[in-house]
């Protein structure tokens, strides 16, 4: 059964940026791409427990603020050292200016 949770509004995130979203004891990262699309991943880097929302978004890449581990936030793919484990991604939709993330 799909479980859509409101994470933020459309305007909460700048273009090519990321925002932290905490829900039910978990932390996520919500991204707005340069093309105004929204994406969501787990909020912590798979290398060490660092919040990706403090990192840098470049095109479709999120770079961890601590060790510069890079992921494709659209697919979750780890792009090389020091990250080796992919990031979990979540479906996202935008409705009436609200960004919803599907959990569970």
């Amino acid at each position: 059964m799909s479980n859509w949770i409101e994470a933020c509004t459309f305007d909460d995130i700048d273009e090519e940026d990321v925002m932290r979203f905490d829900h039910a004891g978990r932390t996520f990262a919500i991204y707005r791409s340069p093309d105004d699309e929204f994406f969501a991943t787990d909020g912590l880097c798979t290398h060490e427990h660092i919040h990706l929302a403090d990192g840098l978004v470049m095109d479709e890449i999120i770079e961890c603020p601590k060790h510069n581990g890079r992921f494709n936030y659209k697919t979750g793919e780890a792009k090389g050292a020091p990250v080796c484990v992919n990031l979990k991604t979540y479906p996202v939709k935008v409705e009436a200016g609200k960004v919803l993330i599907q959990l569970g």
Partner: protein
Amino acid sequence: MNTAALAAPTKRDYSLIGRDSRLAVESGLAAAQWYHTDIPRKQMKELMKRSDGPAMRDTAIWLGSMVILAGLGVYFWGTWLCVPFFLAYGVLYGSASDSRWHECGHGTAFKTRWMNDVVYQIACFMIMRNPVTWRWSHTRHHTDTVIVGRDPEIAVMRPPDLLRVVLNFFGILDVWHASGDLVRNTLGNVSAEEKTFIPEQEQPRVVQIARIWAAIYAVTIALSIHTGSIMPLVLIGLPRLYGAWHHVLTGLLQHGGLADNVTDHRLNSRTVLMNPVSRFIYWNMNYHVEHHMFPMVPYHALPQLHAMIKHDLPAANPSILHGYREMLPAFLRQLRNEDYFIKRELPPTAKPYREEFHNEPVATAAE
């Protein structure tokens, strides 16, 4: 400045697989949350923004100067006139490579990824640091900066081995150990300590790179023997010895004499204002507190970052000489009491140190 010291010295175990490594994990010092100054997201994004321009310019100056200096050195070979050219070449080879390795390892120097990677490989070769091993060791250095038993890059352990420090101004021990590591890795051996921070899937690349480098050095040595001249080695390999002094001079200041086993870079790192030549060679790593707090900020934005957060940091040392006047007496005191360290005063505008995390049982003394 305030200084602090424990009453009775304790012995530190710097092994990455030893007692203090285990204790750091058990006490929560390993992979801990570190203090950082608050910066609004918009400003942080501006600071982190990548560009190719500054690093392309600096790399062209760096490698271009090396080619010219090497050419002049070779031209004047056999006369004393070659000496200053090789000395300058040596600093660009044996010292500037240290900061290039570092910045490109972080992936922040250039915006274009392959440019970072190419300069990283070149610089690693010059500084004799296996690009795979050292990428991972530096990752650990940023996770556990100067945490005993966790940080593989502590330059001066306590009590300080001052002979080792002096020898390294000429790269002697570094090259000795790097050569040993090169031979060991070439033979397919990745050590137990290396395995603590290099993921298993990366370890074959350590060996692969070592074998390529061993081949380059073998060709250089063979060329020297064949030509009956040391010149090939003066160009490749030996500059890591005769040109190392500047990176040691600046690098020791990064953490020397400051606290260990803390989770606030203001306590264990030092920012030193330097002359423009040293800053070029060092690629602005003199802003070291800033770099550790925000490793994603490219070297060329560090002066701007420094201006933005200096209200929250101990005052920067105004010169290299000033830094040494602070650090060297601390080294000497650590010979008698290895728990001694410099605790630098924060300005009134700064957030205080988190004493609950750094509550050394200290007898505080003023110097």
